[in-house]
């Protein structure tokens, strides 16, 4: 309903948009390994900086399916953007075996007096942006640990790690593989993993409702292909690392040591989304009221 020609039933390749981050890696892997092809899908993957940049592209028909974090997608839906969750992409929470160092961690300076997440109460913390997924995750984790996240002073910075190192903030959160790089340098200390998505779903594949309705079959096939691709990389770390190295233009040796998220293999349910809506609602993400989880899951 938005933008110029929403070419919803385009005959060309399926246009996917992902982050150039570890979350987007399975899409590339699936493409390379022929998973999409197997499902009769011809895809073209582009990258974007953040979820925020993908929504207008979805609405304008420049992109058919986009990989968004749950926070952004729910906020958009709350504002009336008619989105449909097609498939889960990344599971939230703290994966097994990553209790010390996970996919996303909170960092402080090596000699910082801050010893636990709860200690962040009343401190200054850097985030890429306020009211975003990392922000919610950090607040959730601090509160869970017994602190009071409402007293934290948040500072926005395009490069929060630099802000931390130069002493402008007391702590920051950062995703992999940046954490692994920092761990090697040793100036900073990981305080512990954040509970991404509050334990619910962290990243999802999204389409506009118009597109999903008009291309039911394609979308269904895509959802299956995604789950298949996710399973593939969950099981084949070597493939994951190799693809990540290509996508991020990073050193494979570095990524070898990095903590990867767990990619979603199960179909998305209304309960999953309901959980996320509740979780986000705690942090006042929805100015116009929370979106309806049942309507979001489709098609």
């Amino acid at each position, binding site marked *: 309903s*938005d*933008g*110029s020609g929403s070419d919803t039933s385009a005959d060309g390749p399926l246009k996917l*948009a992902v982050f*150039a*981050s570890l979350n987007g890696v399975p899409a590339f892997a699936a493409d390379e390994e022929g998973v999409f092809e197997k499902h009769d899908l011809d895809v073209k993957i*582009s*990258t*974007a*900086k953040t979820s*925020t*940049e993908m*929504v*207008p*592209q979805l*609405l*304008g028909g*420049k*992109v058919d399916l986009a990989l968004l974090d749950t926070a952004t997608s729910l906020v958009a839906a709350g504002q009336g953007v008619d989105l449909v969750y097609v498939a889960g992409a990344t599971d939230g929470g703290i994966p097994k075996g990553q209790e010390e160092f996970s996919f996303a961690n909170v960092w402080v300076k090596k000699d910082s007096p801050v010893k636990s997440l709860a200690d962040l109460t009343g401190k200054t913390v850097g985030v890429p942006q306020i009211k975003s997924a990392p922000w919610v995750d950090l607040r959730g984790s601090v509160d869970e640990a017994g602190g009071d996240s409402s007293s934290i002073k948040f500072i926005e910075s*395009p*490069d929060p*790690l*630099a*802000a931390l*190192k*130069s*002493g402008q903030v007391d702590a920051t959160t*950062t995703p992999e*593989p*940046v954490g692994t*790089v*920092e761990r090697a*340098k040793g100036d900073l200390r990981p305080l512990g993993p954040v509970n991404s998505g509050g334990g619910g779903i962290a990243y999802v594949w999204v389409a506009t409702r118009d597109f999903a309705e008009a291309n039911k079959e394609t979308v269904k096939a895509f959802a299956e292909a995604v789950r298949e691709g996710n399973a593939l990389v969950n099981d084949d770390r070597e493939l994951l690392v190799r693809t990540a190295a290509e996508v*991020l*233009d*990073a050193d494979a040796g*570095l990524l070898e040591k990095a903590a990867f998220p767990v990619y979603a293999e199960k179909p998305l349910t209304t309960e999953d989304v309901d959980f996320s809506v509740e979780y986000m609602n705690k942090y006042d993400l929805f100015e116009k009221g929370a979106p309806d989880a049942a309507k979001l899951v489709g098609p």
Partner: protein
Amino acid sequence: MTGTKTAPAATGARSGAVPTGVRRLVNRLLAILVALVVWHLFALGPGASSDFPTPPASFRTAVDLAGTGAYWSNIATSVETALLGLALAVLVGLPVGLLIGANEHARRSTQLLLDFGRTVPAIALLPLFLLLFGATRDLGLVLILVSAVWPIIIQTSYAVGEISPQLRRVGRAYHLTRWHLLRHLIAPSMFPFVFVGLRIAATLSLLMAISSEFLGGSDGLGYVLLQAMQINDTERAFVYSFTAAILGLLLNLVFVLLQRRVLWWHPSVRKGGAA
């Protein structure tokens, strides 16, 4: 007649106060050296805490990157976008600037719109452009257009006021054709202002090309810069930023050389000759 034009430039009718040849190079290198020393001290001092790369470290990274084809193709992509966008901005900006500079009615009628439009930054309009153009090169071109067109419009419209009233009268008295008026009277009078506009616009074009790649995720220097930042590779990120700045520098030196060629007769360039 074009033959005679370059002759005085060649025979040294240039600004005498600028030292020539080796002397000039030495001066420039000296200035750059000073800057490098400041940078080095900064990197070791206040910058040390946040891994600010030192010149030697950056230089090593730069050498490594320069060995890869990708580095150069990314530069080519960004420069191409920037130049295309700049051309677009000139194509739009020059006529508009001329019109509002020359026509009081046009100026007044559009003033509110132009003042309004030029204060709304392109990045504030990013979602709308993404909606309309997607993360393509078109996005870069549009972002460049809506940023770089303003300096050209403004400088051009001011330039119109610089046409000497006496020469205008000569033009009218001798019935110069429209083309001759433009080519031999209006354009030369306006060059000094318009050139500065072009130089500002050229830099903006490059910056916006890189921003659009950075934000929209299409290929080019901006994209690899984003990649480097996403894996916290400060050194590489710095080299990419500096590459962008050096491209801006080179682009502008081209313009300055061009300016000296076109404006050799101008008091700012020529030597002596008060009369």
